[in-house]
């Protein structure tokens, strides 16, 4: 009966070995000169300025290599990637590009370095206040702004001029203009007002802007949800009204930035709510709306101001577990410096986070729209600055989406939203 147990034992041993091998996850390869890993999303535009900037940094810091690693395109996936890697303990990167809304969250979770000591106040003041504020938590600075975004109302200059109209200041005016132009043009393929109503962060931004346009907010300083529920209800009803009245086509409830930018860029819409990057694409040589697009501040509703747009953009932060904190912070300061932002504005469809650059003659020569953007950015403000912003957003998105799609009344959605946020805050111990 000899070799049977031996064979069985071999099988078991083989299985155990396989299991052991499987237990070894991916490990990063280290060693060599000091290597900083910089994690960021691919920069779109005619020329990617980042590699050039990184080589400059390397030249100024001999013995240091900066390795650039791309993030996925989707913001949600980026966030998930960061959370899982930063939670896990030893993230394989040193400097990371973050959406501004994640900075308080990452700061509270202890994943990024406090930059207050290394960044002099003058340097902070050189950036937009609405970019520095969201990167500040508990009085400390946690990230530096890399580039800036603000919500804009794009409009067809040629169509408005044809009917003698100025950019609308209220949503009612916008609706009226859409009806007027559509009646005059008689083009069934010409949509009125395109915006992002899909259930994702972009949709949340659109709803927030409507709330601000009606002089209310989604959460107050004490964390109370919907402090002015009636105004919130009105704002939601106004957005739903855009769809019901046909001012906006029904598919905006499933649309994101790109799904709305393209039809407008093909000349099939009168108004578009979008970010500044779209402007560069509209002015490309082969664009059908070249020279026919204007930007205006976001319209208001009954109780709010004009131009209540959301600011946004990307920030750079340093991982708390980096092995080269001083160098990493230097890289961050370099990439957000005047020089680097200038290069980025020239090479890519990005807008700087430094107000001074908007008056820079050299940059204006390349992009004449910069001065017009400055007041729009100054009027905008950031989304709620709290470590729990994403939780808040993902909790409220379904409620807002239900209103936009017509599945829930605005009053009901506000009511349910309040209940959901209160439950969330209970869990967070607030």
């Amino acid at each position: 009966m000899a070799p049977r147990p031996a064979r069985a034992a071999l099988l078991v041993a083989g299985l155990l070995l396989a299991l052991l091998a499987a237990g070894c996850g991916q490990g990063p390869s280290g060693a060599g000169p000091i290597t900083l890993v910089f994690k960021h999303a691919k920069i779109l535009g005619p020329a990617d300025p980042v590699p050039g900037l990184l080589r400059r940094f390397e030249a100024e810091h001999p013995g240091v290599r900066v390795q650039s690693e791309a993030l996925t395109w989707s913001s949600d996936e980026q966030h998930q990637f960061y959370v899982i890697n930063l939670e896990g303990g030893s993230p394989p990167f040193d400097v990371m590009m973050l959406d501004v809304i994640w900075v308080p969250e990452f700061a509270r979770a202890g994943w990024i370095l406090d930059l207050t000591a290394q960044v002099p106040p003058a340097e902070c003041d050189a950036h937009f206040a609405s970019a520095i504020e969201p990167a500040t938590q508990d009085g400390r600075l946690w990230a530096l702004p890399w580039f800036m975004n603000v919500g804009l109302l794009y409009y067809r200059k040629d169509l408005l001029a044809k009917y003698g109209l100025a950019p609308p200041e209220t949503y009612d005016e916008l609706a009226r203009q859409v009806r007027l132009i559509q009646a005059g043009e008689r083009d069934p393929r010409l949509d009125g007002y395109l915006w992002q109503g899909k259930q994702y962060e972009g949709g949340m931004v659109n709803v927030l802007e409507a709330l601000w346009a009606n002089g209310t907010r989604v959460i107050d300083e004490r964390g109370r949800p919907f402090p002015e529920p009636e105004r919130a209800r009105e704002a939601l009803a106004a957005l739903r009204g855009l769809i019901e009245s046909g001012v906006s086509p029904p598919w905006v409830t499933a649309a994101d930035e790109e799904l709305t930018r393209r039809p407008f860029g093909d000349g099939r819409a009168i108004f578009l709510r979008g970010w500044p990057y779209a402007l560069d694409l509209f002015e490309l040589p082969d664009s059908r709306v070249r020279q026919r697009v204007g930007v205006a501040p976001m319209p208001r509703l009954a109780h709010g101001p004009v131009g209540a747009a959301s600011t946004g953009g990307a920030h750079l932060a340093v991982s708390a577990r980096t092995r080269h904190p001083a160098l990493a912070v230097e890289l961050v300061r370099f990439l957000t410096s005047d020089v680097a932002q200038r290069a980025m504005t020239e090479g890519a469809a990005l807008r700087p986070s430094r107000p001074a650059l908007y008056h820079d003659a050299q940059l204006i020569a390349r992009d004449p729209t910069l001065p017009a953007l400055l007041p729009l950015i100054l009027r905008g403000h950031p989304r709620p600055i709290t470590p729990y912003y994403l939780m808040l957003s993902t909790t409220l998105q379904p409620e807002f989406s239900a209103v936009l799609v017509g599945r829930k009344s605005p009053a009901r959605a506000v009511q349910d939203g309040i209940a959901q946020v209160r439950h969330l805050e209970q869990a967070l111990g607030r």
Partner: protein
Amino acid sequence: MASPRCDTSSRRSAADVTDRRLGWLLLAPALLLLGGLTVYPAIWVIWLSLQYRVPVFGIARWAGAAHYAFLTVDSRFWNAAGVTALFTVASVALESILGLAMALALRGQQRGRRVAVALLLLAWALPSVVTAKMFEWLYHPSGGLVNFLLGGRAVNWLGDPALALPSLVLADVWRTTPFVALLCYARLLTIPAELYEAAEVDGAAGVQAFARITWPLVRPILLVALLFRTLDALRAFDIMFVLTGGGPAGSTETLTVYAYRALFQTLQIGFGSAIGVVVFVLVMLVAWAYLRLINRQEAAA
């Protein structure tokens, strides 16, 4: 069970002990794996559901029944429960009818049985993510085959809250009907042809033959198939998550998708576990009810 024989009693009990020990030895690895990764988590999730747990922010404290209390008044939960119920009932009903019909059609098949079963099982064997992507493309407003066959009308199957759930149900029915069909088909094959011939002699054919012979014999296996399918539908996650993500506006958000979003999107491990426990209890209750029904049927037969 061997009858006792006095002279071998001591030897038999020794063999018994060795057998018992061997039994435990052979059973241990499986029990360890199951215990650690299926049973222990099932108990742990109940414990988690009684806590406020947000690992990202280091929050971990006792909540008692707070999550469950919230669920009773949470409209999103009740919406998800309704969607789950609708999805399950519609799916299972369609599958049973369609599956039985397929089995009946296949029964008389003489040539190409293997090809027939292969074509049938293809839908069942594909990963649910593949099926979801497949149907997402079929339902595409401008590039999808469905709208093309409907003469180019741009129906937004997955974006219209009224159409999304039926579209999802159809995709799931396509994927799971083969299971029901196969079970019924196997059962139908065991029904001897003489029974039908005898019935024909008695003057009963077609529908009557079905009612008197086929149905009573196939009903038990159909019930078993329904049991499996109902439990699967209640627990279904992949297809709705990938096909619609629970949208638009929660019209296809089942309890499982709601639980997942609570767990991994809002990172509320405690709250998400509570929803998971509700699904757990629901599935167990339904399983118990079904088994009682099946036992009663068997007792009656």
